[in-house]
């Protein structure tokens, strides 16, 4: 075995949901092996949760992830309501789904922007993040916060969506829909994006099953799993929508799934808004007096895949055990398959492909040659390589035409 170069990506950023360090072992340009180190910033949320009351846990789990901050409270609410045997009102169901789908839209837009940035398409980055803003403004209007919305509680939601807010949401949705058309067109028609992402970071269906991957990562490989459809909760069984899948399993397929999912989200929200209008204003909570002993499983489809919460209650006002599994926990493990054999320039977008809350990778460390300790690349240079590759492809494509 020849000497390999080690390129570390990571280790962590305190804002990141799952801080970790990826060590790419490279032979020349090609990634030969990948190893990960996690636990730099173990927040011990599961243990903390055992010392908080059920009402407080919502605010705790909301802070697991800064981007999809409603998916964890959603799964936790499902788990606790399963233990208590509570059926929430239809209005609360619709409101929960509206919040979750708005979040999916802004999270997917964020991903499209970052993916564009890593490919050297800063225009896509600017667009996507610009059009994400109105969605965040909607959250501010509905919940008072642009993020960490504090909307969920056992037995319903904490804030209502009244008539005037509904028309405002509709207005913004129209804008977002038009802009999504624009973005989808720009991404789907661009030959350079095709060249950079097609056949890159391919995950086969069997790989997905083996690693237990979920969300767009699984759906892009032809596995039609979506908790909203398979194990329906909240308002999802009350509205019409379909699960988006693709078969190629590469980065392009993942982008395609995310972009098309945004249209489904818009459609779900529109139907939910009609549902809200039918229900009586103010009926958003059911009183829950106590949580009996027992166990509950809560699932929710976050933008990145299935969030799973397992709650064990001993009849007191705090959970006796609370196990949380975020989607990136299983999705990130698939790098072992998707990155090996790629060039370093493609590794950045492959890692971005599963949308692993990318702030950690933003903080790439300086790379050293594992043999000599010589400094080779830092994070900025790694992105520059990716951008350079896009530039080369652009010029070759131009020559051909």
């Amino acid at each position, binding site marked *: 075995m020849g000497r390999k170069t080690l390129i570390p990506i990571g280790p962590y950023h305190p804002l990141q949901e799952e801080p970790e360090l990826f060590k790419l072992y490279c032979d020349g340009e090609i990634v030969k092996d990948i190893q990960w180190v996690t*636990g730099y910033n173990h927040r011990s949320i*599961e243990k903390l949760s055992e010392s908080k009351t059920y009402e407080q846990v919502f605010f705790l789990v909301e802070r697991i992830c800064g981007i999809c901050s409603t998916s964890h409270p959603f799964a936790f609410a499902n788990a606790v309501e399963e233990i208590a045997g509570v059926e929430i009102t239809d209005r609360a169901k619709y409101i929960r789904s509206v919040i979750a789908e708005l979040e999916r839209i802004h999270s997917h837009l964020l991903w499209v922007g970052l993916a564009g940035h890593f490919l050297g398409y800063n225009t896509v980055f600017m667009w996507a993040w610009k059009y994400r803003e109105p969605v965040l403004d909607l959250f501010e209007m509905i919940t008072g916060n642009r993020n960490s919305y504090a909307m969920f509680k056992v037995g319903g939601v904490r804030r209502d969506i009244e008539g005037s807010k509904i028309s405002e949401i509709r207005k913004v949705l129209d804008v977002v829909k038009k802009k999504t058309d624009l973005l989808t067109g720009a991404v789907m028609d661009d030959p350079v994006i095709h060249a950079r992402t097609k056949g890159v970071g391919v995950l086969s269906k069997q790989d997905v*099953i*083996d*690693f237990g991957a979920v969300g767009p990562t699984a759906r892009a490989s032809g596995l039609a799993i979506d908790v909203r459809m398979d*194990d329906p909760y909240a308002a999802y069984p009350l509205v019409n929508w379909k699960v988006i899948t693709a078969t190629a399993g590469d980065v392009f397929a993942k982008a395609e799934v995310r972009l098309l999912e945004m249209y489904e989200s818009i459609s779900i929200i529109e139907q939910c808004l009609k549902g809200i209008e039918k229900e009586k204003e103010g009926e958003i909570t059911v009183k829950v007096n106590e949580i009996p002993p027992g*166990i509950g*499983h809560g699932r929710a489809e976050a933008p990145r895949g*299935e969030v799973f919460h397992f709650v064990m209650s001993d009849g007191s006002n705090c959970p006796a055990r609370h196990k949380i599994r975020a989607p990136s*926990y299983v999705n990130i493990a698939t790098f072992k398959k998707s990155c090996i054999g790629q060039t370093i320039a493609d590794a950045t977008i492959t890692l971005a492909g599963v949308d692993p809350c990318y702030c950690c990778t933003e903080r790439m460390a300086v790379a050293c040659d594992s043999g000599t300790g010589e400094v080779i690349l830092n994070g900025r240079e790694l992105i520059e390589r990716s951008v350079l590759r896009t530039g080369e492809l652009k010029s070759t494509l131009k020559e051909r035409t």
Partner: protein
Amino acid sequence: MNNSDIIARIAQEFKGELLNTEVKNQRRAILTIKPEAILKIAAYLYKAAGFRFIIASAVHTKKGFEIHYHFSNDPTGLILNLHVVLDPEKPEIESLSNMFNASNWIEREMHELFGIVFLNHPEPGKLISEGNWAEGVYPYRKEFKSSKNQE
């Protein structure tokens, strides 16, 4: 096949290994099994019945160390828990990671947090506690006191 048929079939197939069956509702069931049967039953669920491994949750209770292995049958929305109770003195169980990669991380995590030993794990290195945790200290056990609590 609906969910009650699936559960009845598994109960029939592994009659000798099953200690208790609890069907909570249409889409949730808990099968308490003998720990030594975990590989056999998990292999049946994963290979023959097409279940997906979601995650495993370890719990430290008065009975000892319990693990709930959560499996999902996506077409029917069933979550099936394989529930094992391990000896409190010597918690040991066969690793599932030679069968699928999905359990690789969580088994290592349970080892670090609870001190449960997973036999024949293909990659037994530390996952989350490398370098900065004391050896032999398992913070998720009930007897563990954080430094704040000890004061």
